[in-house]
């Protein structure tokens, strides 16, 4: 599966980008930016997951379900089993979301277009309904999460950031491996012509199911890392419908061109949020909404299309 993956241009660029990001953020940029990078990279994983679905023309308006599920998995494992190890946290978040995705996948893989979007929304809101009302799950307060450890040692923000970057690299590289595989191409083919795929001898639903679980895992992992780096989870900022909307927004903003796109997009979003909030605390939503419309109208290809224009890079390597 991974044979010669490091010869892949996208992968090389990704790795160089991530490493240089670690470098400049620890030596050149002010510390606070590290937070934005951390959140950006974590959320980027969820965006990557949505990007995969988007390539099969499936848009989930309920991906906060897995995002929040991963986050709460981390929170609950700390509350009941005192687990704070970052590796465990990440694994648990991914696994939890993956399992949930696997089961819901049996239903969702039959759905397309707006029905897919609506059903995912419904599922996520079911979880929201539970979390917001159930006192033992912290209801709308959510729960606070203590700093992560690694093999029992306290992790500084610095190292947490490095670890997150590491997780992100691993995830993104495996996704690239998936995308260049037959299965990966198949899912883009499905968007093009389902009947043909069936007659080529592969089950469309199975292919979509696999992809769905992958994207659930990514979203879960994102939620887990987000919880770990923020130190807090709550339903309104993790599971509610507008969180899902936000995720889809970033996906469109990033563009589906390349595995690096989601992370750049998510990081940019973090900075937009930070500054919108600092400069116009009463109009930050409008700023976000404005950006959204601008992207849709003037840069339908998302940020990545701009990057391609600037560096005229990635055109041939692009899977689409």
């Amino acid at each position, binding site marked *: 599966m991974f044979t010669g993956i490091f010869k892949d*241009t996208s992968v*090389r*660029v990704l790795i*160089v*980008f991530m490493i*240089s*990001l670690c470098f*400049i*953020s620890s030596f*050149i*940029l*002010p*510390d*606070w*930016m590290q*937070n934005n990078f951390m*959140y950006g990279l974590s959320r980027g994983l969820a965006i990557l997951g949505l990007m995969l679905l988007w390539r099969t023309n499936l848009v989930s308006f309920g991906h906060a379900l897995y995002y929040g599920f991963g986050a709460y998995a981390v929170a609950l494992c700390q509350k009941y089993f005192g687990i704070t190890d970052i590796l465990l946290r990440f694994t648990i978040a991914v696994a939890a979301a993956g399992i949930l995705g696997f089961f819901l996948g049996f239903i969702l893989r039959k759905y397309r277009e707006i029905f897919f979007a609506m059903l995912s929304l419904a599922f996520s809101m079911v979880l929201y309904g539970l979390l*917001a*009302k159930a*006192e033992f799950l912290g*209801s*709308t*307060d*959510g729960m*606070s999460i*203590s*700093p992560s450890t690694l093999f029992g040692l306290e992790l500084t923000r610095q190292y947490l950031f490095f670890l997150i970057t590491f997780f992100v690299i691993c995830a993104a590289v495996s996704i690239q491996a998936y995308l260049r595989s037959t299965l990966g191409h198949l899912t883009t083919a499905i968007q093009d012509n389902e009947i043909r795929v069936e007659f080529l001898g592969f089950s469309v639903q199975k292919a979509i199911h696999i992809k769905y679980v992958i994207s659930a895992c990514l979203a879960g992992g994102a939620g887990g890392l987000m919880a770990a780096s*923020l*130190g*807090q*989870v*709550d*339903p*309104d*900022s*993790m599971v509610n419908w507008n969180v899902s909307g936000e995720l889809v927004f970033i996906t469109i903003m990033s563009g589906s061109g390349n595995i690096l796109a989601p992370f750049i997009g998510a990081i940019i979003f973090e*900075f937009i949020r*930070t*500054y919108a*909030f*600092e400069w116009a*605390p*009463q109009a*930050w*939503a409008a700023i976000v909404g404005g950006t959204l419309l601008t992207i849709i109208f003037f840069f339908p290809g998302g940020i990545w299309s701009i*990057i391609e224009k*600037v*560096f005229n*890079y990635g055109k041939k390597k692009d899977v689409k």
Partner: protein
Amino acid sequence: MKIKIFNKTTKIVSATMLAATFMFASPAISKDTVKVGIVSFLTGPAAGVFGVPAKQGAQIVIDAINNGTMPAPYNTKGFAGAKMNPVFSDESGGGTKQVGLFRDFVEKQKVDAMIGYISSGNCMAIGPIADELKMLTVFSTCGTPRLYEEKLRTHVFRTQANAVGDSMAAAKYIVDMYPNEKNYTGINQNYAWGQDSYKFFELAMAQLSPGSKGSDKPQFPKLFVGQYGTEISALSLDKAKVVHSSFWNGDIEAFTLQAMVRGFFQKKIFVSSVGGSAVDALDKKFPDGIVMGTRGNVGLLARDDKSPLNVWFIKEYKKRFNALPLGPSYQYARSILAYKFAMDKAMAKTGSFPTQDQVIAAMKNIKFKSFTETISMARGGGHQAVHSVGYGLTKYNKKGKTPGAEKVKMYGPECIYPPAGTKSEDWINAGMPGAKCN
């Protein structure tokens, strides 16, 4: 091949760096100003009657202190001589978002202290982070007792007493005024504040009014729902006559309206621990005879208090915002006072501009003069304030054409709060040993 890639990536990297340097922005702080982040609801349903009055209360006191126009004992200029440069920020959007913003305040804006927070949910979220980031944080309004009873905080202070007192006082008031009402129910928002308020009201009732019985279906609607038709029916059907509520923000107004037009208050004894704000919003339409609290001797209940600070505050507030200060206005102003008090004290002690640790040390266990009473940070390891809590019956003041209250009873801190180091729950269940009520 390699080289080509390298070129591309260096481009990308340099681009990122460029972008980064653009965003580079963190002003240096000189010692003649202290930069303080002040967080309250500026958007969302809690802005109008909580967030904004709170902000305004803070503004008045900050400006007065910066210009040295504040009455004694705060008539010295500045905070340990330094002018305060407040950065106001929005509290809405949930605890997780607030934690993110808090980090920005500390690491990006490099503030010297954080003051504010109305929602108990946010306080629960911020508490641990404040300690983790070692940032002096003074909570103004939020009331959940969990904040200190789960663990003591090193960098977090709270100048507002917690929900225990509000619920205790409510129970006491019921027992004093309506000794024969044994059945009660409640409607509270479904998060830390609402849950705790009702929990302690139940515990207190069990102790203070033997044989009293709580309903098996108290209502816990989600925050900011705004439609309570069904809940009101459910409460009306309940045989309990006493209805406890810790509603605040837009919810208390929405609820009051919807209950009012259904004659709910004529049939029930409604105990509202934070309802003060709704009274002003509804003005003369607000039904008389509701048991109303303001979480301390502030806002509605403090209108007639003649102590000079209070008179000054109401006058200034009227002059600048053409309105009466509400509970939150007092609570935020109070936190600013506590901060000044501690800064000056530390300054006097060390003789030089105090470090954060010196300020924290100075703030522990202080007794500082507030608008209507002296408040002591006597709990939570010297980090948690206690003060008297009062309830009264709403009564529209026909002459003054302002809402007011009658039959006001104040309960002193020693009567409604556990002694230092005791968990509220244990203390109440043990029958409140050592409580000094007059």
